């Protein structure tokens, strides 16, 4: 166990946000879940007792005469927000005094740094480059992510959950978010920070980042495993596999979604539903491709003269 190496990575000024990200994410997720579960219990209680719903505006306490039904933004909300602003300002000040910007030597095109890492918020994208061609990982996927986020308000037909935390009422959307961001995106950032060393090779935490390390790794394409050699055959095979994934995946999602989210399903139009399914399957496709690559050394599934996936 190379503690020196580990400490070097953890203590690098570049990595401070990422090191902080882990406990912060856990804390805030836990906090949100706690509140959501409390709300869920209250919702269950009130549904069982509609009478109570008339007197109960706050989730923790029943209504009491003299209490306002609604409170003003100023000062009751703003004073809390201002307190938060003060604390954040203090943190930023202390941070900027104690850690200098990680500037390095003047750039030299003859000597590039190794590993060359993107800023932490782009590390996920950089990690995707391992699994896809540059223009897919760097152009198509980010575009799909942005478009996907943009369509969320249009395909989300569930009116519940506005202004309060709840799990029960938004199980599907929260689950999707938890998978896509909390798990997938953050994991990729963590891999990019802690795992990827010189040559973008995979180093387990505590392994020394040796610049001259050599590893034996051969990646194959999926058609090769099936003995397909002709280019045309590869195009067709890939189309069948990818098409099959979306088809089969579509069926599975259909079956599960209709069973577990019948209300949502009923509320959605065909267009809304199919857009949702497309983005969902594309998102799930990423970890599948990662798994194929990392565990089975499969490079491409679909090879065409124009693009490879």
């Amino acid at each position, binding site marked *: 166990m190379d503690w020196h190496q580990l400490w070097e990575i953890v203590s690098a000024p570049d990595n401070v946000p990422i090191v902080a990200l882990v406990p912060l994410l856990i804390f805030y997720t836990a906090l949100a879940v706690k509140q959501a579960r409390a709300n869920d219990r209250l919702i269950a209680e009130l549904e069982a007792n509609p009478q109570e719903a008339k007197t109960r505006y706050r989730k923790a306490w029943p209504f*009491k005469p003299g*209490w*306002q039904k609604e409170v003003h933004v100023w000062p009751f909300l703003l004073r809390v927000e201002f*307190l938060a602003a*003060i604390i954040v300002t203090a943190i930023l000040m*202390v941070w900027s*005094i104690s850690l200098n910007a990680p500037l390095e030597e*003047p750039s030299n095109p*003859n000597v590039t740094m190794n590993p060359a890492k993107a800023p932490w918020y782009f590390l996920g994208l950089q990690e995707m480059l391992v699994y896809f061609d540059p223009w897919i990982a760097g152009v198509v996927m980010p575009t799909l992510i942005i478009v996907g986020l943009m369509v969320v308000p249009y395909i989300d037909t569930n009116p519940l959950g506005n202004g309060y935390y709840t799990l029960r009422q938004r199980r599907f959307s929260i689950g999707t978010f938890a998978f896509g961001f909390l798990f997938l995106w953050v994991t990729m950032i963590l891999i990019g920070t802690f795992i990827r060393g010189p040559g973008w090779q995979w180093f387990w935490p505590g392994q020394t980042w040796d*610049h001259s390390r050599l590893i034996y790794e051969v990646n194959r394409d999926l058609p090769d495993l099936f003995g397909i050699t002709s280019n045309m055959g590869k195009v067709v095979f890939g189309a069948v596999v990818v098409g099959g994934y979306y088809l089969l995946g579509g069926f599975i999602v259909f079956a599960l979604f209709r069973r577990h989210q019948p209300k949502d399903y009923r509320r959605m139009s065909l267009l809304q539903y199919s857009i949702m399914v497309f983005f969902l399957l594309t998102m799930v496709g990423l970890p599948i491709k990662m798994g194929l690559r990392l565990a089975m050394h499969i490079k491409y599934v679909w090879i065409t003269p124009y693009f490879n996936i």
Partner: protein
Amino acid sequence: MPELPTPDDDPITSKSYALYYALATAVLTASLFWALWDEAYGQRPWKEYQEVFQQRYSAFLKTARSKSTQSQKEVESSPDYQKMEQQYKQASDQATPQINKLHDSITDLSAQILAVQNVFTDKRAYVSAVTYEIETDTDPSSKRNRQRDLAKWKQQLFTVAFPDGSRKKYNYEQLEAEYNALKDQRTAANSQLGDVLKPITAIKTQMDQYVSDHMATLTPLQVTGLENKVEDISPAIHQIVIPDPRNSGNPIMVDRCESCHLGIREPLKLTAADMAARGQKPDKYARAFVSHPDTELLDIHDPEKFGCTTCHQGNGRATTSMVKAHGTYEHWLWPLFPKENVEAGCQNCHSRDMVLISGNAGQVISEGKFLFEQRGCMGCHKYQGYNSEPEELRGTDQQIKQLEQQKIDNLKMAAEYTHEGDQAPDNTSANLLYTKAETLKVDNSKIDGQIHQLDLETRDLMRDTKKVGPNLKEIRAKLNRNWVPVWLHKPTDFRRTTKMPNFRLNDEQIRSIAAYLWQTALKDPIPHAAPGDAAHGKELFETRGCLACHSIGEGDQRQGGDFAANLTRVGEKANYDYLVRWVHNPRQRIRPYCPYEKKDIGPEDYAKHGLTYAFDLDHTTCPNDGHELQVENMTVMPSLRLSQQDAQDVASYLITLKEKDPSSYPDASYMDDPKLKAEGEKWIRQFGCAGCHEISGFEDDRGIGTELTQEGSKPIERLDFALFTDMAQRGEGEPITDPVDRARLPEGPAKAPWYSLKGFFEHKLAEPNIFDKGMIKSDTDKLRMPNPHLTPEQIRAITTFLMGSEDTSAIPAAFQYAPEDARRDIQEGWWIVRKYNCVGCHQFYPGQQTVLMGMKRYQDPDWKEQLPPKLLTEGARVSPQWLTKFLANPALSTTDTNRNGVRPYLKVHMPTFFFSDHEIRVLVRFFQALSKQPMPYLPEQVPVLTAKETDMARSLFTSQAAPCLKCHATGDPQHDKFATAPNFLLAKDRLKPNWVARWLIDPQAISPGTSMPSGLFRQQSGHWVFAGPTPPSFQGYEQDQNALLMRYIFQLTPEEQHRLSGMMPRNAAPAKKASNSVPAKGKRASGTLRRSPADQAAALGSGSR
């Protein structure tokens, strides 16, 4: 969830956040103060340095002041000063009444001027304003009116109230006149006062000058000046800005080093102990406040012009911390040079200098630069400036080819023009074409001249090309065959101090390399030599000067220089016949080599063309194709011009030098096995043997190493620390485990991180294959650099040299030391002086130790006089024409060569180096430039003596007090046995008249330790006169008598000298000399010369009175 009791008040509206606010605000305020502190002090640590400096320096100045006052008092109590003080007092007492009077009148006048001025300036301002209006008035009539008004106004009377109470009235013009008159009066009074004060101030200045001249330290006044300066220090960044001449907005350099290093340019010598807090050890402040250790260097390299980082590197702009400013962090590419390698900085601008010595500085870098050449690093590693001849040869070759092609083209063109001219329609155009053709033909003759020059250049370059190691084509004639594999195994086992590095060869490699060398060596027989007298050979070897380069004996017994091989065991390896030949003339080759045909030319080639088989420096063309041949062995070893008999004697002595018998070496007959040859060729190529040796089949091979000209700028990532990268970065230990190699590390085994150029170079030089350790590699992939078995000091020197070998494009070109004047001759000359190890025998600058000076033999006073001449002022002494002749042939004779041309009495002979014309040119210019003599040299005219002057001079020349011919040689063998100084007949050609005149006055000042006595002449009424008794004819002679003697010497004829030497009383060697320890037969034993210069002067003095 347990139901909480419902509070009475609404928790949202009633909850108080005061405490949270108080805490958060406190934190925010604290961070604000922290930010302020950080801005003022945290990011500006130099402020603290400046405060501490102020305290410490004023404390130091206080002690300096008391010392200074003390010594001032001492100076002031001296009689000289007292006298001046008296004078001063007297003069000032005398002048006081007058001075007071003048002062009074000046004060009075000033008051009057003030009174007039008050009124006058007011009126003048009015006049000026009105005049302006008149000038700018466009209406002629109003202009006239205004003019009239002004004239009228000027007639008005104005009242001036004088300080004595009186009032006077003036109109405008009178006022102006009065004002000017008063001012003139005051000026006159002032100048009068100046005249009166002048003698007094002069004495005062004299007194001050006396004090500062006679005080070793600063005067109290100067100290006070410094104290005031220190008091005024207020926190500020002190920076040196070097502007870019091409881009004024963007300076090249901003060095803020002096913000902390405040004492660096103080006029006092400040040490860390001086600047430590009272009674404490020097801390980081004390170490930062020292003054620059070498003020002389600092004077040459004015920081205002060069900054600090040009020499020292580091991050001159950074002020936030010591690490940042010194640049000793991974992202600053030019970190401060460590103290022990500080001279690396010199190389940036002085890469063209071979020898860089200034006071105590420059020894390390000069040693590094020398070692790079001498130890043969340049054989494998290209480095601009080193070993450039092969490349230049290729260049001239190319040029000759181009010119020859051009000649052919020109002829073709000329023929064409002539042809066109023949068919031209009219005469004018025909003539034009003929002229063109003619021009081309003339061009061709110019080209011929150019080609001839290039041929000469080629010849010089062929001669200047030297190899570090011996010519291996001659090993069949030279070596004991069985010795070769033993040597290859580990050269240092046989000869501890050899230049040949250890190559870590395995047995297979040794066998095949030895076989290749043996089989490709020349098989021509060399003449047999008769055995010689080893005892005489030993004497010759020890006294001829061989030991200036070679050494003999191991360990404490070692005597001689380390420029060439240690010959302690040479008898085990060498053949006698070859040794004789080598000692007689090491440059003599068995066969000449033709670089054009790439083969060794033998008698058969000469016979083909009906030529006799003769090749030497006068016969250098190839019989087959007329190209320039390599006719010399490419060694720097000169010929000592020994006779054949002497050469045999020396060789006979050398062959006795052995520890075991040559026949005891194990048989190596496999070296004749032709099957090993191909394998051997491969390994010779692999290890780049041809970098240092001439090897058959490898004549054109270039160095196999990486170019090092800019090695110091190499990014650290490009240096392969292999498996020790992490170890080096983290300072986790020392990879070199071999105790011998470990002891080579200049800084000892690594304790701190050594992931730097310095660390790499040092480890690489200590154990070149260290970065192969733990790696699995085939023999051909292994690191090839051999172990040069250097000492820690040598490694430090080479490391310093390499660290300084940087890309200098960021440094302004004007900083580069590339003079175009005589200083360039000095730069170029040093390369040749070091190349041939002239410094082994001769002293070039005061304090330089030659090898011979350090030897036991020459500690004896008798032998001390046998040391080769010092060349401190050689350029001023000898004429360049003569020097040219002498360097080409130091015997100054073509027939009697076994002698010294100038100093026949010296046992050490100036060898013949067979310098090329180019090298002689450079050397002659070097000596002239070193003595600041102009080139080209036009000989001074020496005025012819009149008959009377000749008589006078002759009487001086032969006088009893200075019997010149007693010590100076005359060419008479009987006399020259004892006369050891140069023959006067040489002087005319050899010496510069002016120098001779100076030499006659004080030889000791020119060449300390010379036998020539000083004090022969003394100064009398503005002239130099002979210090001994002079005949009456000298009465009334009003010229310098040393010049008279010089002129006589320059006009001395052989006949006259012969006549005089006959007249000279030749007192034979005094009896006590017989017991002298010098064993030589040609020992000089003149009583006069044995005397110290002081004795000599005493003798002269007693004679004259």
